[in-house]
């Protein structure tokens, strides 16, 4: 046990706290500690290896009921999106409205595919554009923001505090008014009406750097020290030591960025129809009014489904990392 932890214990104000009497010798204290450790290990074994501290059943019940109510509330839109996509047109406009579908059908999707085939730019092109914009915007951001976050979290150099403050402050400026200057800059760079107009600004979003820096800061310095002693350069440390250890962070960032880029319709910058993303094409289809409500429900479903699949892939790998990572001191 370190000194720090002991100091912490001493500060804890709860009366229920177990404190050793002052006259105990260090040996006795150590023995008592060993005894308690054994007891905890026994408890852990009894509970199938899972360490559980005692908590009140009533408190548990309250927490889980609260969570259950909120959960139903949260998942409702997802349920509605799925059910609406399967509803025939007459059920979509039914009164009294029902949440669950009674005669599930896939006509909405077949209607959508018919409409998709009518577009003069082949739909595969929209899909390709989306893949380039979404994956390019995501991967680039995760990599260069992490690269910048590493020195900000772990090195000491002039200007470090200033650069970091700029990033955090930039999160608080309303992007609506910076759009016009941004448009001017993008035109000036000559990347207007290219993928670059969407992808390059996305690489420089402030949130990603902030998130990565916060996670990297928690890594123990000894990790890098030992790598340095073995002759690794900064790039190797970043790539082989830091990044694997903050996997939960960059997977989370990937989820955010994927969502951000997926939702982009490219409206302001992409004028060529051949460059527009899927999201734009799908929205055009649904703007046809009441008769397209069915296809619209199918579109809503697809627009929601893709990020959810990506989310599930990333989340399950986040959960995996925690069981394998043990590189903390």
């Amino acid at each position, binding site marked *: 046990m370190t000194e720090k932890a002991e100091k912490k214990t001493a500060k804890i104000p709860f009366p229920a706290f177990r404190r050793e009497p002052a006259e105990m010798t260090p040996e006795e204290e150590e023995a008592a500690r060993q005894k308690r450790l054994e007891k905890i290990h026994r408890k852990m074994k009894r509970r199938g290896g899972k*360490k559980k501290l005692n908590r009140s059943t009533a408190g548990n019940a309250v927490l889980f009921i609260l969570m259950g109510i909120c959960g139903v509330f949260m998942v409702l839109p997802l349920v509605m999106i799925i059910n609406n996509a399967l509803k025939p047109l007459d059920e979509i406009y039914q009164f009294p409205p029902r949440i669950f579908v009674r005669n599930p059908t896939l006509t909405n999707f077949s209607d959508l595919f018919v409409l998709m085939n009518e577009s003069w730019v082949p739909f595969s092109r929209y899909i390709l554009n989306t893949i380039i914009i979404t994956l390019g915007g995501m991967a680039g951001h995760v990599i260069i923001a992490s690269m910048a976050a590493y020195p900000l979290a772990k090195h000491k150099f002039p200007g470090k505090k200033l650069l970091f403050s700029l990033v955090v402050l930039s999160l608080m400026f309303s992007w609506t008014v910076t759009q016009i200057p941004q448009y001017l*800059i993008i035109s000036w760079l000559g990347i207007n009406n290219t993928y670059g107009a969407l992808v390059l600004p996305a690489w420089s979003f402030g949130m990603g750097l902030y998130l990565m820096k916060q996670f990297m800061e928690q890594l123990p310095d000894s990790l890098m020290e030992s790598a340095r002693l073995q002759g690794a350069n900064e790039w190797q440390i970043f790539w082989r030591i830091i990044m694997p250890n903050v996997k939960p962070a960059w997977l989370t960032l990937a989820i955010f960025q994927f969502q951000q880029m997926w939702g982009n319709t490219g409206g302001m910058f992409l004028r060529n129809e051949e460059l527009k993303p899927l999201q734009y094409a799908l929205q055009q289809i649904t703007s046809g009014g009441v008769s397209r409500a069915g296809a619209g429900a199918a579109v809503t479903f697809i627009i929601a489904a893709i990020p959810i699949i990506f989310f599930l892939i990333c989340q399950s790998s986040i959960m995996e990392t925690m069981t394998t990572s043990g590189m903390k001191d």
Partner: protein
Amino acid sequence: MSVAVRTKPARQKPAVHNDSLLHQIRKNKASYLLMAPYFILFFLFTVLPVGMSIYLSFNYFNMLEAPRWIGWANYVKLLLEDDIFIISLRNTLLFAVITGPVSYLLCLLFAWIINEFTPKVRSLLTLVFYAPSICGNAYMIWNLILTGDRYGYLNGILLRLGLINEPILWMQTERYIMPVLIVVQLWLSLGTGFLAFIAGLQTVDKGMYEAAAIDGVKNRWQELWFVTLPAMRAQLMFGAVMQITQSFAVADISIALAGNPSVNYAGATVVTHLLDYGSTRLDMGYASAIATILFLLMVGTNKLVQHVLRRVGE
């Protein structure tokens, strides 16, 4: 624990002598090289536009003619003459004061509870709670729920239960607008901070729980306060900044559900006001002034919140 110790040296300013500065820059070449790609883009696409916007806030600029310098006029008009700005400021502060802390605590609480489950259940529960944020405009579903005629879900249910005799125009009735918007905002708010907390909990060193149990931590709440929270202080800071930027910038849901302008400006927020001037009235100078005021408001709140968060686990 180690975080608290390490933040201190980071805040010390390096000795700034002219030749030692050059020397230090040369010594830290690797750091600057790693940061270069990001910060070049960041200056181009973020710092420069923000700087230009702040400059524009001192101008009259209608996006057709060249900006004309008018000094503090925009700010004077904004703070002294614009009644709707005062309404929208009041609404925004209401959003910030209610949804900010509540959703921050909900994010933390749910992330913490979810962390108890087995990995598979955990992924699924995370999806359930993150669902409203995952598809860009899931809040449009509230339009279906809140439709003002008999076809709206909420009206349908209330009519069937006999609680009301005629459908309520939810989003056209002044007194319902803010409460409904607050509920929708809370519903939407398990977003960025929530996922950051989930990821943060995965990185807490498991050995620390054991050590704490030996030292006499008795129950879950003590464990949370003395072990978990201090270990994820970095994520707590991050979550707070995200919460501030979200709750001060509420606009999309207000526009989607109540319209812009809403009935008697009951759902106006600072950002809907900004959008009104920026994209409808094409007065970019004035819109920039609104953005600058909002920015100062958020920076101030952030300073305050970070100060409070430093005391977590003490």
